[in-house]
């Protein structure tokens, strides 16, 4: 580059670097005036434009640059960012491939082409590029790139079953062709082992592993050691592994739990490895093994004392397995072991979770265990306090349903409160960044009150739980566990509280707040912050799709093959996260409620929802983080405090169908048009045979899995939407303008972007004429009466509403009914908006249809208005001094036990009732507004 040009281009880069995209465009224009054909400047301008969201202009420039087949590094880099911004990943690959073809001796271009394929997961092409590079540059690194690409292709869901072994055998052959053996570095060795494992060539793998260098690698590399364990297990060499583990535990003092598991597996191998009932001889032999293993574990436990808990835990596991294999000798063994463990580690917080799998005691054993625990309560020091916390938790775990009467639970709650308040003295001097040692007692109080609420159905217990937990939260400000419980309880009562979660946590935790969030926000005057909350929580998915692929490429360049498979899985799990798309649907539901129902909303969301529809979802939601100390005969705290069953894949599928169908009918886009207008790549088609059916057929198919996920009200709603779209569908199909007309319109309004999106317009006009023009010659479909189900739905919801109002339902249940009714109304509006103009009614003789619509709308409106009035009245009633008094009285049980003064409870009461008032009033007003907007 000449220095003069360099001087001109520098400011463009500077502007881009500082995100001053507007000045970058200006700077580009200045250069382009003098040198209209400068490809680099064009590419940079396209980049600035795409960052400014000027997609159309950027597209035009990008196509011009691509047509020049650039090979210059600067141009290629700029274009990579442009195309990424436009979502045209396959064009990035094509661009680098073209460049590399022109300069096959350029190693850097080869690498870039390889990475471009890696980023989009195009393993077959990646493998070919790497092979070519290996031939050209003779570097083993490229050989391993090609080997691992073949492995990844074999792993890919889209690869046919029969092709997989072929690819793996190819990879194996390539390994032996390398200049250096695979144990040159641990990651290459890992690749070699992986291939042998997939091909089930365990003996060959064992030979490698038993080699001196193989052993050495496994000692320092955790990933290689992990795959070694796996192979040995598959090979059936359990006993050999057990022997090694024994040595490691005793001599090297290795306390890796996996070693203990190896030894356990080996001990029971003769019984566990066959499905046939074991002979007496075998039983005797195994019993002997058990005795030996018990000695090993006991020795480890004695040596470690308080330093490590593995030995004692392994003993417990040993007894448990002995029992499950029917080799029981002494009935009290497990209990003795548990008592032993408790005596040593009872003052550690992990004690409860460690012991849980072993405590399903009955009868006499249970009695003894209970009295053992009861004798261990004491509250003298912080250590004994922790011990007592464990005692209370463990006792609670084994409560039988006979012991779970309201009276006994209430007594327990009061005892927990008492010990909690006593325990606070140990944390008086702690800085406020520390957790209070007594926190878990407050958590137990919360559990007891929730259980009381479940037993009696009285809301007052939830209020007591909230008041206690608020008190505890104020004393232990950093306790996220207390906050989690509060979020759940408030959700039942009416409002929500925020948690500060970031990054990946949004995928696993946002369900706490956002599942069925539309229910809370459906009213336009309700909580609009929910919408921004959805957007914020979705950020992680954007950064996943740009960043993770990049790191897969980077892991190739540093040859960390062992990480790549994990990265790919991570990317896939985030990309196809159930929570991601649940949130998407919630966002759509909120948009429909808050925004005008115009073509922009309908068309855009239609396309996006259709993309989601084919995904196979992963559920990454973390429900385990919510503490659970409920007795084993009760559902967990999480299950008890869910207002409705958490939405799963079935729920998502049902709601996707509902909205895709409604949008499809309301939209003018049909599939041929959509194809032409779409910028960027489509998602990879999935291989599920279910998905091969035409979309229309799949949309009307109800599946049991969906029904199971819906609440009763949602089931009614689902039926309603099916009936509605079946009824209105034919009229939509008739009135919808033909694709050719639409494309012509789009071309006219978009003179700026010739070429790319509309290139095959002529073909479209011919190809899809069947469902376009020809139809207009037919008679309009005869107008049918509305199906009975539609008015009935509104009546049903009304009576559900009345029943709940007169009963003692929680606010969340009431809101669910209101929200579902409103959603039905909105969908009705969405499905009928096309038929509103008088011209349409006249042109197609739809007078009678319009009348049916009107009748239904009036009916639904009046029901919704009525609900709105009732809610507004409830809102007024709740936040009065009387309402607060009721709350305070309801929680009298926690005041009795001292400590909580009247004012504190009154404060919580005020907060709760005010929040409820706000929710009710907001939603009441919102309802009225929705009705007005769409009437």
């Amino acid at each position, binding site marked *: 580059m000449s220095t003069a040009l360099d001087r001109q281009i520098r400011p463009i880069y500077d502007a881009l670097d500082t995100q001053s995209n507007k000045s970058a465009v200006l700077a580009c224009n200045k250069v382009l005036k003098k040198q209209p054909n400068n490809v680099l400047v064009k590419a940079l301008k396209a980049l600035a434009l795409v960052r400014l969201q000027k997609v159309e202009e950027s597209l035009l420039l990008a196509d011009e640059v691509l047509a020049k087949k650039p090979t210059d590094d600067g141009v290629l880099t700029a274009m990579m960012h442009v195309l990424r911004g436009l979502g045209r990943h396959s064009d990035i690959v094509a661009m680098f491939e073209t460049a590399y073809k022109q300069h096959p001796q350029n190693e850097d271009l080869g690498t870039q082409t390889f990475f471009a394929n890696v980023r989009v997961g195009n393993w077959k092409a990646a493998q070919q590029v790497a092979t070519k590079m290996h031939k050209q540059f003779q570097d083993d690194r490229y050989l391993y790139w090609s080997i691992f690409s073949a492995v990844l292709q074999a792993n890919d869901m889209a690869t046919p079953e029969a092709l997989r072994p072929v690819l793996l055998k190819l990879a194996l052959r390539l390994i032996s062709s390398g200049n250096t053996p695979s144990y040159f570095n641990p990651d290459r060795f890992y690749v070699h082992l992986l291939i042998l494992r997939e091909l089930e060539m365990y003996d060959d793998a064992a030979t490698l592993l038993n080699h001196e260098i193989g052993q050495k690698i496994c000692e*320092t*590399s*955790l*990933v290689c050691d992990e795959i070694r364990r796996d192979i040995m297990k598959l090979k059936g060499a359990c006993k050999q592994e057990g022997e090694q583990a024994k040595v490691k535990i005793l001599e090297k003092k290795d*306390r890796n*739990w996996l070693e203990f598991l190896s030894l356990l597996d080996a001990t029971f191998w003769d019984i566990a490895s066959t499905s046939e009932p074991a002979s007496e001889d075998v039983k005797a032999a195994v019993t002997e093994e058990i005795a030996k293993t018990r000695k090993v574990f006991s020795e480890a436990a004695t040596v470690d004392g308080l*330093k*490590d*808990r593995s030995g004692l*835990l392994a003993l417990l*596991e040993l007894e448990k397995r002995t029992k499950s294999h029917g080799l029981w000798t002494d009935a009290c063994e497990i209990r003795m072991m548990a008592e032993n463990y408790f005596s040593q580690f009872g003052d*550690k*917080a*992990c004690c409860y*979770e*460690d012991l*849980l*799998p072993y405590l399903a005691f009955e009868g006499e054993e249970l009695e003894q265990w209970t009295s053992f625990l009861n004798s261990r309560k004491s509250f003298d020091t912080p250590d004994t306090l922790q011990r007592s916390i464990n005692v209370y938790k463990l006792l609670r775990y084994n409560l039988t349903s006979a012991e779970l009467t309201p009276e006994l639970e209430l007594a327990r709650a009061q005892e927990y409160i008492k010990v909690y308040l006593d325990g606070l003295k140990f944390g008086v001097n702690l*800085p*406020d*960044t520390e*957790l209070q040692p007594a926190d878990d007692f407050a958590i137990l109080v919360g559990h007891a009150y929730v259980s009381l609420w479940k037993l009696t159905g009285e809301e007052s217990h939830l209020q007591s739980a909230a008041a206690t937990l608020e008190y505890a939260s104020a004393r232990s400000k*950093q306790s*996220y*566990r207390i906050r989690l419980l509060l979020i759940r309880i408030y959700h039942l009562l009416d409002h929500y509280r925020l*948690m500060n*979660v*970031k*990054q*990946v*946590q949004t*995928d*696993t*935790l946002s369900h706490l707040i956002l599942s069925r969030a539309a229910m809370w926000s459906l009213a336009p005057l309700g909580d609009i912050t929910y919408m921004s909350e959805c957007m914020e929580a979705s950020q*992680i998915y954007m*950064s*996943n799709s740009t*960043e*993770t692929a*990049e*790191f897969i490429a*980077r*892991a190739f360049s*540093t040859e*960390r093959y*062992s*990480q790549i498979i*994990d*990265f790919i899985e*991570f990317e896939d*799990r985030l990309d196809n996260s159930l929570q991601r798309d649940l949130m998407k649907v919630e966002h759509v539901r909120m948009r429909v409620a808050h925004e005008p129902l115009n073509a922009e909303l309908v068309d855009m969301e239609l396309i996006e929802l259709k993309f989601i529809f084919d995904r196979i979802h992963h559920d*990454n939601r*973390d429900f*385990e*983080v919510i503490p659970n100390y409920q007795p084993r005969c009760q559902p967990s705290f999480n299950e008890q405090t869910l207002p409705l069953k958490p939405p799963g894949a079935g729920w998502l599928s049902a709601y996707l169908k509902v909205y895709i169908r409604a949008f499809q009918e309301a939209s003018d886009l049909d599939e041929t048009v959509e194809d032409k207008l779409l910028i960027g790549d489509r998602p990879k088609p999935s291989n599920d045979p279910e998905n091969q059916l035409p979309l229309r057929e799949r949309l009307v198919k109800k599946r049991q899995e969906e029904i199971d996920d819906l609440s009763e009200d949602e089931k009614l709603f689902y039926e309603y939407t099916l009936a509605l779209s079946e009824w209105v569908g034919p009229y939509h199909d008739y009135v919808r303008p033909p694709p050719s007309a639409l494309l012509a319109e789009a071309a006219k309004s978009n003179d700026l972007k010739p070429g790319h999106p509309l290139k095959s317009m002529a073909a479209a006009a011919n190809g899809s004429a069947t469902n376009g023009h020809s139809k207009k010659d037919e008679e309009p479909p005869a107008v049918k009466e509305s199906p009975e189900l539609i008015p009935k739905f509104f009546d049903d919801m009304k009576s559900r509403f009345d029943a709940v109002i007169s009963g003692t339902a929680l606010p969340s249940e009431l809101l669910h009914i209101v929200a579902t009714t409103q959603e039905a109304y909105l969908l009705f509006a969405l499905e009928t908006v096309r038929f509103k103009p008088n011209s349409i009614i006249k042109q197609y003789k739809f007078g009678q249809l319009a009348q049916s619509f009107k009748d239904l709308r009036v009916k639904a409106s009046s029901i919704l208005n009525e609900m709105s009035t009732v809610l507004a009245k409830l809102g007024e009633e709740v936040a009065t001094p009387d309402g607060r008094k009721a709350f305070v009285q309801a929680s009298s049980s926690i005041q009795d036990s001292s400590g909580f003064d009247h004012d504190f409870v009154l404060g919580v009461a005020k907060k709760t009732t005010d929040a409820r008032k706000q929710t009710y009033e907001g939603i009441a007003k919102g309802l009225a507004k929705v009705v007005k907007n769409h009437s």
Partner: protein
Amino acid sequence: MFKFNNINLDIWTETYGISFYLTYLSRWPDLCCVQEAPNGHMMGYVIGKAEGHGQDWHGHVTALTVAPEYRRLSLARKMMSLLEMVSDETYKGFFVDLYVRCTNSVAISMYEGLGYSVYRRVREYYGSLGLGRASKDEEDAFDMRKPLSRDPHRRSVRANGREFVVSAHDVS
């Protein structure tokens, strides 16, 4: 990462973006380690890297954390010794260093127990915890170091490190 909520919801533990974790995993996977309980819950993890030039080549502890319910079991001690072992044997570093908030007294005394000493105090290294008190101590970090076998004369540490203050710009 889908399972670390029980650890990362704690106030002392920072949650980073995807690229942070993937950078470490793609470059120093052997300096990253997770400890799981037998029931599959995550108990704690350590993330580290190797960096520096010449005499300054060392292992660095980027994050070390244990979930509240698995504390007081010497888990941190074990993870630190793993990281020291790998820094020493695989990466041949001279020392291991780490940063810690000056207010995190529990952690500081643990590191001292493990043989670390304060090398210097770094001003305004951390963001505020938003607790609004003693903010100086809160945002400042101690740089703590422990020499490894390649530094038998303990050149990488000094005795009066607490008084040795540098600003955050001067450290990487």
